[in-house]
């Protein structure tokens, strides 16, 4: 976090309170148009593979017309969809296989920074892993702006509070975190909306628990996602206790499921580095079924993918201590 970044040039920022509604309406229109273009060009691509020119030409015409319209709306609204920033537009896991797979039809590998991503804890007990994963992804963004962490007051008591020395142990400076204790999910969403709207924060992490947190719906997430696109702030929605079979519809760019993975044991069968099982549940460009087992390396701030079978949990070995308890460290039970 101590790395000083080059000065940010020409950051786009608009006064947001007054004409927010107009902006949202306009932007949702914009996005609709963009989706149309995407889907059109996709069909055009398919068509050109199967049948020559004729079909693709009309589709292309339609696409150019839409693009012209899009440009017109853009110039009228004086809004750029993604901020001009010196930081890269995408952030990566640092693992070639995953990053390349996540590319889709975007300009760079990895996940877009100016977007809303969902991170689900596979079970309630995996919440700590999911929280760590969202912090580590925030760290991978390499922003030197603060991380805004918003949590519901009630859940903090049940799941434990963020413990700053533990954050430091992951290689993240706890001083970069601004922690907000929201009374309920609606206040939390409002705070997140504020945080995402201005470019003062680097990352906004909103922690919500329960099957259906109050106020969390398509509109709210769409608002967050649009604000994130405008301000360039990475927005992570950290969820636990969600219904994984039938998840709430949201406007998130991607949805991940995170659970704890057995670590590679260290000497004397001590628990090793933090390990995660992640799998991609949903992605805007239709990716599916991507999963990996990751291990976090604090020293070079990167993930490492673990190959299958590398750390098969050895259930058989239970430290049978009392048989050879001596004072010699060498004879300690393994």
């Amino acid at each position, binding site marked *: 976090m101590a790395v000083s970044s080059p000065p940010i040039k020409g950051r786009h920022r608009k006064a947001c309170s007054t004409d927010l509604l107009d902006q949202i309406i306009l932007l949702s229109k914009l996005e609709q148009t963009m989706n149309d273009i995407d889907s059109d060009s996709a069909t055009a691509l398919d068509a050109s593979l199967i049948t020559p020119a004729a079909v693709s030409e009309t589709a292309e015409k339609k696409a150019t017309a839409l693009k012209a319209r899009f440009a017109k709306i853009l110039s009228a609204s004086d809004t750029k969809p993604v901020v001009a920033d010196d930081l890269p537009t995408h952030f990566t896991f640092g693992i070639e296989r995953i990053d390349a797979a996540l590319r889709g039809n975007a300009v760079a590998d990895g996940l877009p920074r100016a977007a809303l991503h969902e991170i689900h804890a596979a079970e309630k007990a995996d919440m700590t892993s999911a*929280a760590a994963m969202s912090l580590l992804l925030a760290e991978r963004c390499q922003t030197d702006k603060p991380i805004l962490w918003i949590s519901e007051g009630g859940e903090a008591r049940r799941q434990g509070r963020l413990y*700053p020395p*533990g954050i430091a142990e992951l290689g993240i400076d706890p001083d970069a975190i601004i922690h907000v204790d929201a009374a309920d999910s609606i206040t939390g969403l409002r705070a997140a909306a504020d945080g995402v709207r201005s470019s003062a924060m680097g990352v906004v992490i909103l922690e919500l628990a329960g099957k259906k947190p109050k106020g969390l719906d398509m509109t709210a997430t769409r608002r967050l996602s649009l604000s994130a696109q405008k301000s360039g702030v990475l927005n992570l929605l950290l969820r636990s206790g969600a219904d994984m079979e039938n998840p709430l519809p949201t406007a998130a760019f991607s949805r991940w499921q995170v659970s*704890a993975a057995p670590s590679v044991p260290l000497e004397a069968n001590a*628990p090793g580095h933090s390990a995660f099982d992640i799998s991609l549940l949903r992605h805007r460009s239709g990716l599916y079924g991507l999963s990996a087992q990751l291990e976090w390396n604090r020293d070079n701030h990167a993930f490492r993918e673990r190959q299958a079978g590398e750390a098969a949990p050895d259930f058989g070995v239970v*430290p*049978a201590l009392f048989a050879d308890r001596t004072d010699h460290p060498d004879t300690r039970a393994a």
Partner: protein
Amino acid sequence: MALFLPYLPTERIIRTRGQPKAPFVLTDKQRGAVVITAPDRQAVALGLGVGMKLADARARVPDLLAFEHDMLADAQLLDRLAEACERYTPIVAAAPPHSLILDITGAQHFYHSEEALARDAEDRLDATGYSAHWALAETPDAALALARHGLKQGAEAQLPVSALDMNAKTHQALERAGLYRIGDLSERPRANLAARFGMELTLRLDRLLGIEDRPIDPTRSLGNVIAERRFPEPLTHIDAALIVLEELFMEASIQLEQRGHGARMIRIMLFRCDGDIARLGLETGASTRDAALFKRLLRERIDVLNDELNPGFGYDLIRLSVVATQPLAVKQLKLEGGEDRQEDEAAMVSQLSTRMGRDQVQKFQPANSHIPEQGMFALPCLDVPSAAPWQIPPSDSPPVRPLHMFDPPQRVQVIAEVPDGPPHRFTWRRKAHQVVRYEGPERIASEWWQRKDGQQSGKGGLTRDYYRVEDVKGRRYWLFRHGLYGEEKTNPDWYLHGLFA
């Protein structure tokens, strides 16, 4: 200026319960006897006074009513009246039991003269049902004494010696010496008076005569910068009031700019024409003179008010005072363009703190303690002065402190193979966990110097043995045994203190 409210306690009763049908007094128990502490106007006319026993008074006036005297309510009422008087000047002090002191130096321009201001205050008090005597003088003590004795400015010499407010013995001694009035005293050489009655007397005399000035202690600390606006026609719309506040802030920020300061804490008072006062406080994360930010914070503040602002009959005075300031240099834009990021961050923090409450928006600070749960503070973001460095963990080691911590730790049932050995299985939240790997113990002793009987062995609190364990599913936990087996406790309890990623 001093305002003396002789019938404050009884008029409070009349205002809350209505006028009783007979003369009444307020009483208090003193040394086992019920004594009159405050007679009402009619009772005074019948010759009853403070300090008289209720039984004696009843003998004189058989149909006398008596109520218990609530001193606390009187003090609260006096404070409220002092607040209401802040419309005349920001420097108002309550002088218990029955008086108010106002420093109106330079504050009378709206009323053309000091007398007009004083009469306005008297009228307003009269309208709410409190009779008041006022007096103007150079010093607060003189004004107070004059008001109490119903005299006007310049009549200090006619005050009785009891106006000195010394003890009864001194007053008696002075009267025995033939000195009845302040005028008699003022002619005497001070050295003689001091030799006979002590320095206290000459000091009080000087204060009464305006030779020495005593600073008054206002109920509310003065703001560094104050901007206010009065309206001939009360404002009945909140929006109009907000616009006025914005203008006031701009006025204040011009003054602040000249000093090279910015506002950190702002206090707003909205005086309703019926005497009610609404107060709002704002705090910012960094000193500011930014009107747009102020407007945003103000809206946030009003949004989260518990009871909404009610203009009622309208506000006739709005005051904005900047209570705390901090140096803020005139801003210079960067040559290469771009914005000041620090300022953005501070504005965001102020906005969130205003909305959620200042304690809800926190930043972490390391604390100097080896007890895990005491190793950190979560302080309000507005208070954190500067970044303190966190301990950097050694390289190439797994996390040894959890990401989530339970405070207080959660009780777990543990099966260990030996009582002072590592855990083998544990039950947490009614689920059994099989330990596959563990590391430990990391022994953390209690801070014996914090305890009363700390230095005696085994009495400074229990030692904890921490274990980092991993269960079958790969989740990592931080468990500790509370107390050394055999030495400190025969059957130590186990607790879950945190969860690792």
